[in-house]
């Protein structure tokens, strides 16, 4: 090959671009330290066998796979939460709960367009494990908002929903919501202040607690917010950049994941898409 191009879906970072990432990481580090989240690292390469039970069908398909010398299937880390669940269930069962952990590592998934983030996607985020009370949800959502506030320049909005708002919906309606097919769903799902989710006592209490946050006005409650039903069991949230119209962070409660690795514990977390923010800043 004569060209010096990097493969599809990955790219070089020149000093200026690297500095943009470092600035974002510095903001995140400061907030994570302040809120007492401890940094952990999982390997870039994992056994498919070890993580498979924690991955939804969609992510399983998008995982980048190859073989080791024994013929076992290896994968590149396709998300951060699943390896962290594996790590906690293998090495941290004796540690006092709750665990407040954070990470700053890229994930790798198959991609057909660089516009959707490419193959290597830098993420920072937290996982709050072993605490099922609302305080954990509040802490995680506030931490996410703190990081974005600290960056200063982002005009973001945050939508909050809850898996219980989907109870009673038929599979067809759920599927329609998942694929943003509001024609089949029958309406554009309602969004607004906390009065639209009064039927959910959890979201009502959550809203009261979040009102104290300086960026509380950025929050909208959304009755039709669904993401990855395989993962989420409670609160779900999604942060978007109003200018670039991109999702820049998402998260929620996933109480069933750690059980799949033999250590049943409630958990809640989020991930910020560093590249989506960096591209916007330019």
């Amino acid at each position, binding site marked *: 090959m004569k060209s010096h191009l990097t493969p599809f879906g990955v790219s070089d970072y020149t000093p200026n671009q690297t500095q943009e990432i470092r600035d974002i990481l510095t903001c995140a580090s400061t907030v994570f330290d302040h809120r007492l989240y401890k940094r952990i690292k999982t390997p870039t390469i994992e056994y498919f066998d070890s993580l498979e039970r924690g991955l939804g069908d969609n992510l399983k398909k998008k995982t980048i796979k190859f073989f080791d010398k024994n013929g076992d299937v290896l994968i590149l880390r396709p998300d951060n939460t699943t390896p962290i669940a594996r790590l906690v269930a293998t090495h941290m069962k004796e540690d006092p709960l709750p665990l407040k952990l954070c990470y700053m590592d890229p994930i790798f998934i198959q991609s057909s367009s660089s516009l959707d983030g490419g193959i290597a996607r830098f993420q920072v985020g937290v996982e709050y494990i072993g605490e099922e009370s609302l305080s954990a949800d509040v802490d995680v959502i506030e931490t996410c908002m703190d990081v974005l506030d600290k960056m200063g320049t982002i005009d973001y909005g945050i939508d909050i929903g809850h898996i219980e708002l989907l109870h009673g919906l038929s599979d067809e309606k759920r599927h329609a919501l998942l694929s943003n*097919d509001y024609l089949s769903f029958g309406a554009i799902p309602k969004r607004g202040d906390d009065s639209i989710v009064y039927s959910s006592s959890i979201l009502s209490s959550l809203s009261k607690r979040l009102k104290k946050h300086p960026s509380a006005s950025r929050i909208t409650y959304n009755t039709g917010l669904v993401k990855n039903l395989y993962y989420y069991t409670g609160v779900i949230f999604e942060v978007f950049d109003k200018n670039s*119209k991109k999702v820049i962070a998402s998260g929620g409660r996933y109480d069933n994941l750690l059980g799949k690795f033999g250590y049943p514990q409630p958990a809640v977390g989020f991930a910020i898409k560093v590249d989506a923010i960096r591209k916007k800043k330019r």
Partner: protein
Amino acid sequence: MITIAVAKGYLLTETLHLLTKNGYRFSDDVLTTRKLFVDDSSNKLRLLLVRPWDVPAYVEHGAADLGVVGKDILLEQTPNIATIMDLSFGSCSLVIAGPETMNISDLTHNIIVASKFVNSATHYFRSRGIKATIVKLYGAIELAPLTGLSDVICDLTATGRTLKENSLKILDTVFTSTAHLIANPIGLKVHTKDIETLVQTLSHNHSKNT
């Protein structure tokens, strides 16, 4: 201001008709202008005048908040967008058509299919367990079986006239399509109120008509 990407041609005419009926005013030369976008007189709407196959890209990546595009193109491209409304106009079908001597039972292994709708054609034959080779063409698809480039075609038809004129007959219908209103999922959040109002007026007028 809400930005709407509209497919130039028949869908633009119908969309303008619908918007004008709902009180939006555009300059008279919208249909003939060489401009790439036009604003309404109240500066509430901006129409991007783009090619039909480009509408999903503008909406998916947030360059437009809304789009008017045929369901056929959505099924072919499966873009990551929100589907809001069936606008009912612009109806057509994607069909498998072949020489008049052919029957549906002649769609067998190693058949060669000319189509612009590569994904839809692939899906059609795969779901029937038939191994097909797709030749991608960009227009005048009817010429392919006449010249021996393909056995059959997979193409859009509204009235069936062009097929008949080229001695082709419909063997099967892959799907039917009408124009749909689509939205960028985030644009929908940023402009919730304005888009809801627009959709309400459109669906009101729409149901009165049908």
